[in-house]
C-alpha cells in the first residue's frame, strides 16, 4: 500500500473518532430528554407530532407494549412501500412512466427497506418512480434507522433502570431519533453531496447527443445474429438522489437510487463525496457507543465497546486492501499491467471506478459490511476471492462491528452478555453486566439473538444450492457461484443488503425467500432483545463486588473480541471453505 493510501485510511478513522464524542453526547441528551439547541427549531414540531397522533409522550411502556407498538408501526411501513410500488403507474411523479412492480419484487423491496437491510432486488433507475423512491424508500430509510436506535435505547434503559416495569416510550424514541438526529444530519449532508455533483431534481431523464456516435456490435443469444445499433444519444437517469443518498448512508440503509448504487457517478461523484459518505456510514454506529456510555453513567463501558469494534475493523480493512491490490493472477498472464505506480493504482480493477481506485473501494467494502450498510462503490462479485471473503465474514459476524444504527450496538451488547456468562462459568460466579445479574432468561434470549442469523444464512444457502430455482440465479461458474449464494444469504440474514451483484435475485424464489429471511433477521432479533430489556429493567442493581468481572478492562476487551471471532469463525469457516477459499486455491493452482 502506498503512503497516500495509508494516509487516507488514517485520516478517515481520525475524523470518524473525533466525531464520536460530540455526536454521541448529543444523542445521549436527545434520548435522555434533556434540552438541546435544536429544540428551538424542532421543539414545536415534536409536540405537534405527538398531539396530532394522540400520543402521551410522558407515558412509559412495558417491554411488551414497546414491542407491539414497534411491530405495528413497522408493519404499516412495509405495507406502504408495497402499495406504492404496486400503484406507482397511476400515481404522480413518474416521469419515465414505469409500470407497477411485480408482486414478488415489491414484497422483497418492502421487506428489505422495512428491515433496514436495503437489499436491492430491483434496479432503481429502470423500475421505481420518483414518488416510490421518495415516499417509500426514503421514508423507510429514516424510520427503520430510527427504529433500530429506539431498540438500542430501550436495551440501555433496561441496564440503567432499577426495579422498573417500563423501558421508555417507542413513539417518543422513534420521533426524537428522526427529528433531532437523522433529519438534521441529512439536511447537512445532502447539500454537500449536491455540491460535489450528486443530482437532485424532479425533472425527467435528460437526453444528450454523444460526442461520437458509436456503433456497437451486439450478438443476440437466441438467433446468433449480429446487430449494430447506432447509439448517437445517451439518456442520463436523474432524480431526487442527494436527499436519498444522505439518509441511505446515515441510517446504515444502503439501498441505492441507481442499480450500481454508490458506484454510480450521480450517487458518488468525487473522492470527497466518497469520503463524506464513508463518514456518514460509520458515524452514528460509532457515536452510539459513547451515547451508551453516557446513558450508563460510565463512559468507559462505551469506549470499551468502541475499541472492540475498531480493533476488529482495522486489520480486516488492511487485509482487504492488500488482497485487492495484489490483482488477479489470471490477468497477469495476459499482458496486463496491474502494478501500483504513480500513474495508476493497478490491482484488481474489474468492477472498480478509477476515481476510487483500490484503497477507497476496499475501505468502502469493509466499512459497509462492518456496518450493516448495503451500499457498494465497487462490484463485490468481481473482488478477488479473499478480498471478497472479508466483507462476507464481517456480515457473518452478526453485524456487530459497528453494525447498523442501533442494531449493531445492541448486537454487540448481547455478545457482551454472552462474554460475561462464559467468564462467569470459568470462575464459577453468577455473571453480572453493568450491575445487572445475567440469569437463565437473559441467556436464553441472547442465545436466540446469536443463533438465528447463522441458521438463516446457512439454511438459506443450503436451500438455494439444492434447488433448481436457487441454482438458476447463480451467474459465475464453480466455487464463485456458491459464494454468490452464500453472500446473498449472509447479507439478508444479517440485514446488510450488500450483494455479489451477478446473482439474478429478482426471481420469485430469491425475492420470496430473501424477503422472509430479512424480516426474521430483523424482528426475530428485536423481540428477544426487548425481552431482555424488560427483564433487566425489573432487576435491582447489584453493587460492584469482589466476584464481579470488571467490563472496562483490556482483559474483557480481549474476551469480547475472542467471543465474536470464535462464534463467527466456528459457524462459517466450513461454508467459506467451499466458496472463496476453494476459489483462491483454484486460482493459485492455475497460475
Amino acid at each position, binding site marked *: 500500500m502506498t503512503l497516500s493510501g495509508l494516509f487516507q485510511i488514517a485520516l478517515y478513522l481520525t475524523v470518524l473518532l473525533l466525531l464520536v464524542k460530540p455526536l454521541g453526547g448529543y444523542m445521549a441528551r436527545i434520548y435522555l430528554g434533556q434540552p438541546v439547541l435544536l429544540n428551538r427549531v424542532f421543539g414545536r414540531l415534536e409536540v405537534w407530532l405527538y398531539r396530532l397522533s394522540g*400520543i402521551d409522550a410522558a407515558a412509559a411502556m412495558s417491554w411488551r407494549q414497546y414491542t407491539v407498538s414497534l411491530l405495528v408501526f413497522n408493519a404499516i411501513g412495509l405495507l406502504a412501500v408495497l402499495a406504492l410500488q404496486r400503484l406507482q403507474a397511476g400515481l404522480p411523479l413518474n416521469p419515465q412512466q414505469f409500470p407497477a412492480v411485480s408482486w414478488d419484487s415489491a414484497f422483497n423491496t418492502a421487506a428489505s427497506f422495512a428491515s433496514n437491510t436495503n437489499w436491492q432486488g430491483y434496479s432503481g433507475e429502470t423500475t421505481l418512480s420518483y414518488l416510490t423512491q421518495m415516499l417509500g424508500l426514503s421514508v423507510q430509510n429514516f*424510520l427503520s434507522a430510527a427504529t433500530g436506535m429506539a431498540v438500542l435505547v430501550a436495551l440501555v434503559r433496561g441496564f440503567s433502570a432499577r426495579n422498573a416495569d417500563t423501558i421508555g416510550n417507542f413513539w417518543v424514541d422513534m420521533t426524537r431519533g428522526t427529528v433531532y438526529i437523522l433529519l438534521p444530519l441529512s439536511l447537512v449532508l445532502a447539500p454537500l453531496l449536491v455540491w460535489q455533483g450528486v443530482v437532485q431534481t424532479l425533472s425527467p431523464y435528460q437526453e444528450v447527443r454523444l*460526442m461520437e456516435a458509436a456503433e456497437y456490435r451486439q450478438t443476440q443469444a437466441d438467433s446468433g445474429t449480429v446487430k449494430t445499433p447506432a447509439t448517437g444519444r*445517451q439518456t*442520463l437517469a436523474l432524480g431526487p438522489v442527494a436527499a436519498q443518498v444522505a*439518509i441511505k448512508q446515515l441510517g446504515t440503509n444502503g439501498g441505492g437510487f441507481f442499480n450500481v448504487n454508490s458506484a454510480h457517478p450521480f450517487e458518488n461523484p468525487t473522492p*470527497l463525496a466518497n469520503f463524506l459518505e464513508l463518514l456518514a456510514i460509520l458515524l452514528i454506529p460509532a457515536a452510539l457507543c459513547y451515547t451508551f456510555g453516557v446513558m450508563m453513567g460510565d463512559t468507559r463501558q462505551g469506549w470499551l465497546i468502541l475499541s472492540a469494534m475498531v480493533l476488529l475493523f482495522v486489520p480486516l480493512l488492511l487485509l482487504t486492501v492488500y488482497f485487492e491490490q495484489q490483482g488477479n493472477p489470471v490477468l497477469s498472464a495476459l499482458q496486463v499491467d496491474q502494478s501500483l505506480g504513480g500513474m495508476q493504482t493497478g490491482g484488481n480493477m474489474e468492477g472498480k471506478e478509477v476515481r476510487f481506485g483500490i484503497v477507497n473501494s476496499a475501505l468502502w467494502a469493509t466499512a459497509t459490511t462492518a456496518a450493516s450498510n448495503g451500499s457498494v462503490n465497487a462490484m463485490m462479485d468481481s473482488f478477488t476471492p479473499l478480498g471478497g471473503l472479508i466483507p462476507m465474514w464481517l456480515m457473518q459476524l452478526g453485524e456487530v462491528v459497528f453494525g447498523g444504527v442501533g442494531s449493531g450496538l445492541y448486537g454487540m451488547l448481547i455478545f457482551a452478555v454472552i462474554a460475561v456468562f462464559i467468564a462467569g462459568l470459568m470462575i464459577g460466579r453468577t455473571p453480572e453486566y453493568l450491575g445487572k445479574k445475567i440469569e437463565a432468561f437473559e441467556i436464553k434470549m441472547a442465545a436466540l439473538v446469536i443463533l438465528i442469523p447463522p441458521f438463516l444464512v446457512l439454511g438459506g444457502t443450503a436451500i438455494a444450492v439444492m434447488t433448481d430455482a436457487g441454482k438458476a440465479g447463480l451467474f459465475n461458474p464453480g466455487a464463485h457461484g456458491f459464494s454468490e449464494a452464500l453472500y446473498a444469504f449472509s447479507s439478508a440474514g444479517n440485514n446488510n443488503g450488500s450483494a455479489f*451483484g451477478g446473482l439474478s435475485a429478482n426471481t420469485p424464489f430469491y425475492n420470496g425467500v430473501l424477503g422472509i429471511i430479512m424480516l426474521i433477521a430483523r424482528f426475530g432479533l428485536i423481540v428477544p432483545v426487548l425481552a431482555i430489556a424488560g427483564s433487566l429493567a425489573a432487576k435491582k442493581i447489584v453493587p460492584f463486588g469482589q466476584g464481579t468481572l470488571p467490563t472496562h478492562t483490556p482483559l474483557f476487551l480481549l474476551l469480547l473480541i475472542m467471543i465474536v471471532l470464535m462464534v463467527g469463525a466456528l459457524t462459517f469457516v466450513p461454508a467459506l471453505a467451499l466458496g472463496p477459499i476453494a476459489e483462491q486455491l483454484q486460482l493459485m493452482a492455475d497460475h
Partner: protein
Amino acid sequence: MTTCLKPALVLFMLMTLLTGVIYPLTVSVIAQLAFPFQANGSIVRDGQGQAQGSVLIGQGFISPGYFWSRPSATSPYPYNAAASSGSNLGPSNPALAEAVKQRVAALNGSRPGKVPVDLVTASASGLDPHISPAAAEFQVERVANARNLPVKTVQELVTRHIEPRQLGVLGEPRVNVLLLNRALAGLSGATEGNE
C-alpha cells in the same frame, strides 16, 4: 394492539410527510438555488448549446483519433446511462479472461506492450468517466498519429488533464475522457482552421 393502531397510523403519515415530502423538497430547493449545475447533472454543451453529455458520466469512443474510455458492461450497449451496471464477472470466470484477452489484443494493435489494467477491465458503474493517467499515456501515440498532431502536443494536453487527488489527499489521480476529447477536438479544430 388496537390501542396503538391509531397513533401508529397517524404518526406514520406525518413522518412520511416530513421525511418523504418536506425533506426532499427542501433539499431540492437548496440544490437548485445553490448548485444548479451539479443538481441537474453537470451537463456540458457544445458550441451550439446542444447538451453533449455530463462531466460525471462516461461516453464510449471508438475512432483512433479519440481517447478511449474503459470497457463498460451496461446493456444492451456500453455506456447506457439509463441502466448502470458492472460486469459482475468473478476473478476466476473464464469469460473474464477471454474478454480481457480480446481487449488487450485490440489495444496492442496500435501499441505493443503491457496494457494498464483499468483500460481492459469493466468499471463498476459501466459509466466511469475517468481513465488512469497511465491509460491516457498509453493512447497518446495512437491519437497523435490519427490526428496528424505532434506527439508532444497531445502529451501536453494529457498532462494538463490529469486531475490530482482531491484536496491533495483523497481518491486517485485520473483523467476525464470526455473533457480530454473535447479539448482534443478543439485543438484539431483550431489547427485545421489555421491551415
